[in-house]
């Protein structure tokens, strides 16, 4: 295995193009190296992305949106006060992944491109309307995070493409987001179900924009527009939340496995989505909810 640690984007592109499909990029390596240790095939070329500035920076843009480098580690994300205040759902979702040790390495780019159905940061990014900047030898493209994962372990990236950064759009006033997951213990586990909600309210508490994304309840993280429609134009009263929960539960397509049955996951996803929506609404300024 050849190891390279390029220091700019053009070098990364050239290295991956030269590898003829046998190159792999690595950010924190917490998924990749664990797989090597359990016998997975090593690539001919491993490109370490952590020395490229664009992949390691968090920047607030002039429009108020944030750019987060795809290889920025979770600990650095949690330490960024501005980002945590604007997008607490996204930063808390990232922070739920693994231990302190994992947080010192693991990245949003790695969590997305590992393409697990249960990736914690992905539903939060999808609900936030995040896009990612993808670069390869054929050029650059901006792709919504919601469109990146095609099936478990498979993304829309070509063999010579990599994610440079994520873009979180500017926040409208009275907006809030939240992500909750269920695991059978309090730390260090993979989600049985996860729900991310991103809301914007008007001055009277009526929902004027909503996005709901679910994790671990379908082959890929799931955007649920039907659940958002239930809330649009409404205050989040009991009747609305009851309908919201049943639409969320009915939208799940989970598997049965040792961590949860289909019925349990459907039910829990609905409960988590309701709780996340209420947290998001409080963060959007609706304090009496």
């Amino acid at each position, binding site marked *: 295995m050849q190891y390279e640690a390029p220091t700019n984007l053009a070098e990364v592109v050239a290295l991956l193009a030269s590898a003829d499909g046998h190159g792999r990029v690595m950010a924190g390596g917490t998924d990749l190296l664990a797989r090597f*240790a359990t016998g997975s095939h090593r690539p001919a070329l*491993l490109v370490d992305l952590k020395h490229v500035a664009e992949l390691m920076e968090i920047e607030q843009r002039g429009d108020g949106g944030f750019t987060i480098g795809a290889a920025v580690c979770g600990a650095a994300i949690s330490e960024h006060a501005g980002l945590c205040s604007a997008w607490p759902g996204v930063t808390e979702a990232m922070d739920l992944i693994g231990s302190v040790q994992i947080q010192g390495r693991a990245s949003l780019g790695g969590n997305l491109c590992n393409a697990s159905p249960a990736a914690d940061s992905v539903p939060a990014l999808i609900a936030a309307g995040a896009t990612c900047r993808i670069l390869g030898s054929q050029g650059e493209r901006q792709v919504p995070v919601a469109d990146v994962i095609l099936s478990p372990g498979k993304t829309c990236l070509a063999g010579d493409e990599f994610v440079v950064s994520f873009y979180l759009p500017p926040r409208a006033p009275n907006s809030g987001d939240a992500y909750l997951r269920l695991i059978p213990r309090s730390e260090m586990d993979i989600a049985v179900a996860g729900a991310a909600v991103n809301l914007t309210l008007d001055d009277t508490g009526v929902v004027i924009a909503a996005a709901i994304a679910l994790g671990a309840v379908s082959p890929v993280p799931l955007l649920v527009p039907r659940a958002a429609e239930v809330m649009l134009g409404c205050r989040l009263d009991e009747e609305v939340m009851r309908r919201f929960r049943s639409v969320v539960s009915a939208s799940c397509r989970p598997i049965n496995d040792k961590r949860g049955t289909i019925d349990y996951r459907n039910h829990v996803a609905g409960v988590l989505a309701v709780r996340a929506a209420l947290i998001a609404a409080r963060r959007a300024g609706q304090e009496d909810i």
Partner: protein
Amino acid sequence: MKQHICTHINGEATEFLCATEDTLLQVLRDNLRLTGTKEGCATGDCGACSVVLDNRLVCSCLVLAVEAQHSRIETVEGLADGDTLHPLQQAFLDHAALQCGICTPGFLVAAKALLDRNPSPSESEVRFWVAGNLCRCTGYDKIVRAILAAADTMRNTNSRTTDAGAQP
């Protein structure tokens, strides 16, 4: 082809040769004979191989040795000051916070990383911080008490030092 890597380990300039496939854990133990760092799971789940890499607590089994180029690494061997144990090490002995001892270096390194950031952690903060360190002997309670006691000792020592420094 072997790679030539230059690092600082526990403050000392240290160079080594490694293969690109080698993990930092393998090099620490097998090449540099720093066997205080333990291998538990080798997949980042147990924390026995915890080291501090450029001020971040990491599992050295999930770092390639080549990634350590020009980095600063702290291992459990850097904790004691000569024959004087670090307050965390002393507290682990005083509280019998170990039985088989395999997880202990990882806990010590993780706990030091916590106290370097937060000298007065709550019990809950300690428990969440060490969630990535597994111990199958103690049931964790003695470890948590030892870390809290060491934090206490270190705060007292620091305040005494500060007081002494303030005297004319």
